[in-house]
């Protein structure tokens, strides 16, 4: 029986599968991970729903990658519990493994093989048919370069090949560790588009990123981690509404610059007078600034 069929069988045979539509697909409860005395993740609680595109934000050392390592079974938690589709990731690892695809932060291909050969090897492990290789290559726009050796690939092509590999067995969950870091605009756009369409088709996507624009553009929800703790959890829009500053920066005809706080009546009136007198050379409203918000929430510069 092929791997994809086995995954389907596991889902249909498990009574817990019936409840999965309404319940969160990933449930992280009081997750704690320590490296010696250093607490990488500190009593983290998170729930992800099916088909959600979830962003995990945080400075270096915030615990994003450690959380993903726990989810892929590479790191045992020191405390708390993590379940994926109702299965405990520690005790029921064999049942969890078929459910997810993983895109690591650094590419790990067989350099001496072509892109297609790399995918064929993993497709062989998953017992996926050859046509699935072509589908995945096409999905990430690598079909034309498929027969070149990976050592000739650019960074963007390597990242796209990682994504193609993670999708070979049609996983229900996709974990990505900084998938668009250091990529050119086009490659990043291809990956974002692919992730969006996967989420639309019901795949749950969890990604860590440093790119604020990316979070705003594609994520349904975002969690901000700081020193292993959850600093904020909401949709990008809600964060925008909550943390956007109602201020305008004005340059007057005298050459002086001023900032008016629109939440204060006296400053609103003063600004009105400047406008009526024709003294305003330029006027800019302050847009929502994720960097500022991040700084406010975590007390840390975004790395």
């Amino acid at each position: 029986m092929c791997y994809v069929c086995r995954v389907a069988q596991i889902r249909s045979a498990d009574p817990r599968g019936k409840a999965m539509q309404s319940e969160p697909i990933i449930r992280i409860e009081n997750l704690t991970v320590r490296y010696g005395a250093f607490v990488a993740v500190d009593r983290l609680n998170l729930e992800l729903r099916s088909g959600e595109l979830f962003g995990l934000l945080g400075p270096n050392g915030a615990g994003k990658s450690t959380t993903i390592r726990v989810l892929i079974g590479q790191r045992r938690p020191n405390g708390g519990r993590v379940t994926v589709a109702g299965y405990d990731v520690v005790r029921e690892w064999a049942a969890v493994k078929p459910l997810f695809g993983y895109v690591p932060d650094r590419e790990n291909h067989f350099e001496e093989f072509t892109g297609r050969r790399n995918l064929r090897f993993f497709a062989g492990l998953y017992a996926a048919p050859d046509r699935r290789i072509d589908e995945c290559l096409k999905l990430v726009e690598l079909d034309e370069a498929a027969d070149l050796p990976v050592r000739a690939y650019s960074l963007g092509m390597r990242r796209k090949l990682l994504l193609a590999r993670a999708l070979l067995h049609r996983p229900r969950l996709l974990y990505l560790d900084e998938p668009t870091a250091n990529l050119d605009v086009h490659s990043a756009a291809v990956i974002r588009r692919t992730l969006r369409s996967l989420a639309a088709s019901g795949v749950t996507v969890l990604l860590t990123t440093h790119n604020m624009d990316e979070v705003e553009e594609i994520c349904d929800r975002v969690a901000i981690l700081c020193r292993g703790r959850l600093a904020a959890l909401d949709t990008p829009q809600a964060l925008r509404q909550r943390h956007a500053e109602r201020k305008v920066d004005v340059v007057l005809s005298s050459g002086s610059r001023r900032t008016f706080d629109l939440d204060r009546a006296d400053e609103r009136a003063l600004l009105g007078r400047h406008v009526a007198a024709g003294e305003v050379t330029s006027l800019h409203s302050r847009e929502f600034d994720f960097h500022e918000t991040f700084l406010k929430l975590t007390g840390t510069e975004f790395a």
Partner: protein
Amino acid sequence: MPRNWHIVRTLLHKELLRHLANRGGLALAALLLVAAMVLSFFGRDDAPAGSLVGGVQYCFIDYWEDDPWIEHLRHNVPRELEGRVRFRPAATATTVNGILVYPPGTGAIQIRPRASDAGGPRYKVWFWHPGKDGAALAPFEAWFWRESYRYLQRTAVPERIDPEMRGGSADEDLEEERSPLDGGLEPRSAMATALVLFALFFGCVYLLPSLTGEERERGILLAQALSPASPGEILAAKFLFYLLLGLGLAALLAGICRPAALVRPFFWLALAVAALGALGIGLTIASLARTQRSASMGALCYTLGVSLLLLVCQQNNLWPVSYLALEYHCPRMLHAAMEGTIRAYHWGNLATAAVLALAWITAAVLLFRRRGWQ
């Protein structure tokens, strides 16, 4: 044991493709084959047995009774042979299964008293020279006979020995016998054995840790472990592939150098045990090393470390310690298997090597399952 053979097959195929893409490895394998052919086709019978360094470096004087004759010989070693003649009671000499053992590059003169009630000569002087080189002991023999004659003259029984008649016939007090030392390293056969052993170590102790280290360092091993392949299946594929690679290359080289070896069951047993042992060592190194560089260095350090250990043990008569090294037993049993000189103690080598190989494999499996893929 692996349940999904398609996974093992895919992993085996991957290993094969990786090695086919490794031009350095292919070139080295080709060089080994060329070396075996050169060894096989040219100068088959002209190489004398002995040590890899020509002549006899030391001559042991093994005696059973420390009498005045021995004392005389001990005090009359000429300057040119000083340091090259070693007197020792036969009781303290190294034996294997009751047989006196001499290191390569040495010869011996044994002075054995005969039973007095048996009649005939009182002593048997037994010359042991390395391999076919009967003249290798000539300078030691000349000194021995000269001083023995002087001693016997001084003790007023000169008629008992005649230096002009040292051609092989025994006189009334001394019986003379000459024998070649078995098992001396004939350079060509030693090289053939070394090639076969090198092929096993090249495949199992160098390539396996190196490529596995590379996979771990680059995260490919983790990618495989996150796929349906279990650590057991990854391990099984590596075992199978490198076992077949090592065995195949070694058997090919042995077949070129010594075709007759291929029909000896002992050869295949010895080869299988040596390959399993090398595989255990290689996988243990692969499990411990985190990077390709440390894996290669680990393999090199292991090889040099064991060589040093064996040398120290040999020089200091610490044989029991060297029995713990697979590298002590494998060359002996493989050499005997290839040359067709299998003795009872070679079966002992085989049994000990099998136990050691099992220990290495157990250690390797435990280590790999614990941390090998991480």
